């Protein structure tokens, strides 16, 4: 990447100004006597004591231990932008009670939470069960630039002069205090690009301290460690959707998505803040990273007090609209965030299987031959992907007639094998009057406009291109209608979508994206809504796929995303490079995305840029097999990379990794259903399930799949063993039992353990006390596995118990929302396995249970008996090294049963 193409904080005017506040602090105060209280909220006025500008302040209590804080100008010159469509629906109001109210302090309670509002200087402390978890404006870094008129040359008209003098007299302080003299306040240049800034400075900034926390994490998307680092002396973390070519790792640079949610975690409490603002945002992080100097200072002063971690959000425009989520546990906080912005819908099963992609498969024969080769080498594969070269000169919704003369026949050949096709549709539209889409958008005025009212023209893959204004619901409706099968006649209802380059990417724009002074629907500037453009593009595509086939669940992959985009699409980490550090950051980035709502995250397996060697490719497949989105993808200039083009051993390693992924599809599918049900992330950092283990806070090369699997992929070159951290469930180093999923060898102690690995080994453990469903029969695609039987892997805990769940339905349609599903819990206790259904099992399935594997039994049972509808039957029990296998229970998935182990 060329860092010169992208701004630093010093080059960004509002970031400079907002950061300067950290040195002096600001002076905001509540105006006495302006308090109004309602059943669920309170309002008051704030005043900036330096320029005496007044602001309206509102604090709402929401259901689920959440508060919403909004600050806007009381009388703005024009409305300031409020983010729409990011929340999944209107917020649900809670109830508040004013406990105490004095001029200096207001105390309100809601559920078991408390908020203390300090009037002068303005500060809000949030308590959960009387523990202070979030403190707003504790450092007095609130900074709200009210809208201004640009300074005019004094006129010679005496009447106007009198009015001006009269206004000057009304202001108690000299006018100089109200002037912002930063050179970039009213117009800004970056390289050769000019930002006219017609409305001048309008930044907002606010700090949030987390007194009960030790670490901060969140605010994807950055190629950095999971735990946020202090930004003292460096640039802040940036949230500004950009098209970054070959992004660098261990960087705070903005990447393709921006999700402004941050979490503070300590052993006792976890809290989160969602900063709802779609403008460019920088986030300063202050943590007490211990070093020699701070240790010495603490020693000399004799105190152990360290400042709590804090985050300083600085946005270029908009209002303060923050949601404070009070936890108290990590999973509670993630669920509170999911209650606001929503979750992924349950995807079709093929989306969770293996995808094969490349920029670009050359023609129809190439697609067909790649699909046939996967069959020849017995490697399962579900979806073929086509990039921009399949179109007629980058005109989306068309096909290149020479390379793909019969797309419907090609699609039929794939779907007959149970496979799918995904095609790309990007938001840039080729400016060609013979292109129907461009003609429609031009005639109807659907494009984003320049300041002068013309269609904005930028440069992207098609050459000269314009961009539809998806903020206009009419444009979204038009865009959605293009996916109808009577219009997009060359695809079927099974073909799914890939929305790329929707940051939006403009090759000749400032920072490779659109200029900030473009005008969108409602006369909003692009400056106000930039991070939301990709989200609005998704809304159009999602509506189109739903209208095309209302009964089928859509699948979209997107690059740009904002809070709430998880309701419509999966994401991937963008254009990575074939290097071990990028492989390592795949896991870190996806963990950060998962806690910010985007569980459906993956990285380009094998890397987008560069040519991986065989070892890197093997390890990348093994890592990708345990990230929720599993797709191989590569740049057009890389070598062909299908598994059979590598030595046989590499091909076998890849095949084993893919087959292992397919065997765990029932677990992934159940996890995504439970994500939609509860909001709990599918992949989790260790601290999500083990919040008390301080050592686990910073572990970001391991991940949990729900609370059942611990995955530590091998992501270093040439290693024969890896260090695995087994977390402790309390602060006395007591840990769970973990069973190796290949050998069922048990790991009983917590802490770091060195585990030997070879080429074929993926270090994965199943937690003692969990039950994991698997499908161990192989098929060429996951859609053909629908009726195959299940295996239940039971790993016992110290008490000899285990539990788990399984979800199944038709894996394709929305019928599960009308109850056509089976959601079943399994419990193993006292040498007996029983199932219990959540709701009634209304889905008719041919699937059954073919095997039950039990690890951790102390004695070997002689036999087992199964009881179904009161009738008992003997089952055979096989004993392997570390497990006991109950042979062929044969019971169907929708039948109540009990399996009892019998001991001699």
């Amino acid at each position, binding site marked *: 990447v060329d860092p010169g193409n992208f701004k630093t904080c010093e080059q960004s005017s509002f970031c400079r100004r907002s950061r300067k506040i950290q040195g002096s602090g600001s002076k905001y105060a509540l105006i006495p006597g302006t308090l109004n209280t309602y059943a669920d909220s309170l309002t008051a006025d704030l005043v900036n004591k330096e320029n005496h500008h007044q602001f309206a302040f509102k604090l709402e209590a929401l259901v689920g231990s959440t508060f919403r804080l909004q600050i806007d100008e009381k009388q703005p010159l024009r409305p300031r932008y409020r983010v729409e469509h990011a929340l999944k629906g209107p917020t649900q109001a809670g109830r508040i009670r004013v406990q105490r109210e004095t001029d200096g302090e207001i105390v309100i309670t809601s559920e078991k939470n408390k908020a203390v509002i300090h009037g002068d200087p303005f500060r809000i402390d949030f308590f959960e069960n009387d523990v202070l978890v979030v403190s707003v404006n504790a450092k007095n870094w609130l900074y709200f630039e009210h809208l201004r008129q640009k300074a005019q040359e004094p006129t010679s008209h005496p009447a106007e002069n009198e009015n001006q003098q009269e206004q000057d007299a009304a202001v108690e302080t000299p006018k100089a205090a109200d002037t912002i003299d930063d050179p970039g306040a009213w117009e800004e240049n970056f390289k050769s690009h000019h930002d006219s800034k017609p409305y001048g400075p309008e930044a907002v900034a606010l700090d949030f301290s987390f007194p009960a926390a030790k670490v901060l994490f969140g605010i994807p998307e950055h190629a950095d460690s999971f735990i946020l680092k202090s930004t003292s002396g460096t640039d802040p973390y940036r949230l500004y959707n950009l098209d970054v070519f070959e992004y660098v790792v261990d960087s705070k640079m903005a990447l393709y998505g921006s999700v402004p949610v941050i979490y503070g975690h300590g052993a006792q409490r976890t809290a989160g803040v969602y900063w709802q603002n779609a403008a460019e945002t920088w986030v300063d992080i202050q943590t007490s990273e211990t070093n020699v100097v701070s240790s010495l200072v603490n020693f000399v002063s004799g105190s152990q007090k360290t400042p709590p971690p804090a985050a300083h959000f600085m946005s270029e425009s908009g209002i303060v609209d923050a949601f404070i989520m009070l936890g108290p546990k990590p999973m509670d906080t993630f669920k509170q965030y999911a209650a606001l912005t929503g979750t992924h819908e349950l995807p079709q099963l093929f989306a969770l299987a293996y995808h094969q992609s490349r920029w670009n498969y050359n023609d129809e024969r190439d697609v067909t031959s790649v699909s046939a080769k996967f069959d020849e080498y017995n490697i399962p594969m579900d979806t073929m992907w086509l990039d921009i070269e399949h179109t007629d000169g980058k005109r989306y919704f068309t096909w290149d007639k020479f390379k793909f003369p019969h797309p419907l026949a090609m699609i039929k050949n794939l779907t007959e094998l149970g496979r799918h096709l995904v095609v790309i549709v990007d938001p840039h539209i080729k400016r060609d009057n013979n292109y129907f889409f461009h003609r429609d958008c031009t005639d109807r005025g659907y494009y984003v406009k320049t300041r002068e009212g013309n269609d904005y023209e930028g440069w992207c893959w098609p050459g000269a291109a314009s961009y539809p204004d998806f903020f206009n619901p009419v444009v979204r409706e038009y865009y959605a209608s293009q996916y109808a099968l009577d219009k997009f006649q060359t695809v079927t209802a099974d073909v799914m979508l890939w929305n790329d380059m929707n940051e939006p990417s403009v090759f000749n724009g400032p920072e490779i994206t659109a200029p900030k002074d473009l005008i969108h629907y409602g006369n909003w500037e692009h400056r106000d809504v930039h991070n939301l453009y990709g989200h609005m593009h998704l809304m159009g595509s999602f509506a189109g796929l739903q209208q095309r086939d209302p009964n089928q669940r859509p699948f979209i992959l997107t690059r740009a995303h904002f809070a709430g985009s998880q309701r419509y699409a999966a994401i991937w980490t963008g254009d990575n490079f074939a290097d071990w550090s990028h492989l390592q950051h795949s896991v870190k980035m996806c963990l950060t995305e998962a806690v910010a709502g985007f569980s459906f995250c993956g990285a380009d397996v094998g890397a987008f840029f560069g040519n991986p060697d065989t070892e890197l490719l093997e390890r990348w497949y093994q890592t990708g097999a345990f990230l929720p989105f599993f797709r191989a993808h590569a740049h057009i200039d890389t070598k062909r990379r299908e598994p059979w083009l590598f030595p046989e051993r590499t091909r076998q390693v890849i095949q084993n990794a893919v087959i292992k992924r397919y065997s765990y599809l029932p677990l992934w599918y159940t996890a995504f259903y439970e994500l939609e049900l509860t909001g709990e992330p599918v992949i989790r950092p260790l601290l999500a399930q083990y919040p008390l283990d301080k050592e686990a806070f910073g572990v970001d090369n391991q991940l949990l799949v729900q609370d059942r699997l611990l995955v530590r992929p091998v992501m270093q070159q040439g290693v024969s063993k890896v260090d695995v951290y087994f977390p402790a469930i309390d602060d006395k180093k007591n840990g769970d039992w973990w069973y190796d999923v290949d050998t069922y060898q048990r790991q009983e102690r917590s802490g770091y353990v060195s585990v030997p690995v070879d080429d074929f080994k993926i270090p994965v453990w199943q937690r003692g006390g969990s039950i994991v469903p698997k499908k161990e029969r192989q098929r060429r695609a996951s859609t053909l596995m629908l009726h195959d*039987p299940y295996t239940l892997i039971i790993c016992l805990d110290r008490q000899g118990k285990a539990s788990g769940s399984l979800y199944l339905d038709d894996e394709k349609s929305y019928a599960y929302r009308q109850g056509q599903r089976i959601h079943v819990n399994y419990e193993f206790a006292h040498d007996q396995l029983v199932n219990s259904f959540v709701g009634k099992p209304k889905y008719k399935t041919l699937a059954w249970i073919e095997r039950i594997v039990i690890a951790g039994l102390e004695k070997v049972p002689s036999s087992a008996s199964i009881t179904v509808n009161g009738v008992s039957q003997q089952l055979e029990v096989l004993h392997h090294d570390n497990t006991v296998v109950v042979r062929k229970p*044969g019971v169907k998935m929708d*039948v109540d049963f009990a399996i009892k182990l019998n001991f001699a």
Partner: protein
Amino acid sequence: MRKTWVKRENIYFKPFYKQKSKMFLLLIFLVGISFIAYQAFSLNQLPGVPAPWNLQQIKRKHQQMMQSLGSKQRDVDDFDGGGADAVAPAGGETSPVAGHEDPIKIVRGTRLFDYDAYKPNFEGKFRCLDGSKEIPFDHLNDNYCDCEEDGSDEPSTNACAKGRFYCRYQKRHITGRGLDIYVASSRINDHVCDCCDGSDEWSTATKCPNDCA
């Protein structure tokens, strides 16, 4: 005095016990003698046979084996792909009339070469084709994989990851030579026609065209 050379007879004389070839032959002879003696002793230990072979017994034994194999074939033909029947077993299957000779049946998905391997052995069991394990004969084709190394106990189903399904149609040269065509077990009953005669879709309703020859 003149010294004369005197030729001495048997200058390379060796006693018999130093001649290796003779000792070797003697050893073989002794081993042979001991073997014959052992055989004579063993024969003497055999119990007396009170009567000649009972031909009827042999025929009955063969009949039972063929009946067992035949009923297994019918199980496979009627197999619905689900294992739930094991919980609620159907009524006893109708046995063929006693004394009626069953026609020869080949287990679906096996090679003709392996015909005899898919009959119960004298213990009434099935031995995996790689010889690694013996399983009860009723576990053959019961939709559960027991021979995990080679998948040979489930030739008709996809229960074994490493199994092979040999298509019913096997192209042969007029002299009878030719390779056996098979598909991976993961292709069985997946609604995709892989054998040229569609024989891998034996329990789905998929209509497979016959593209053989």
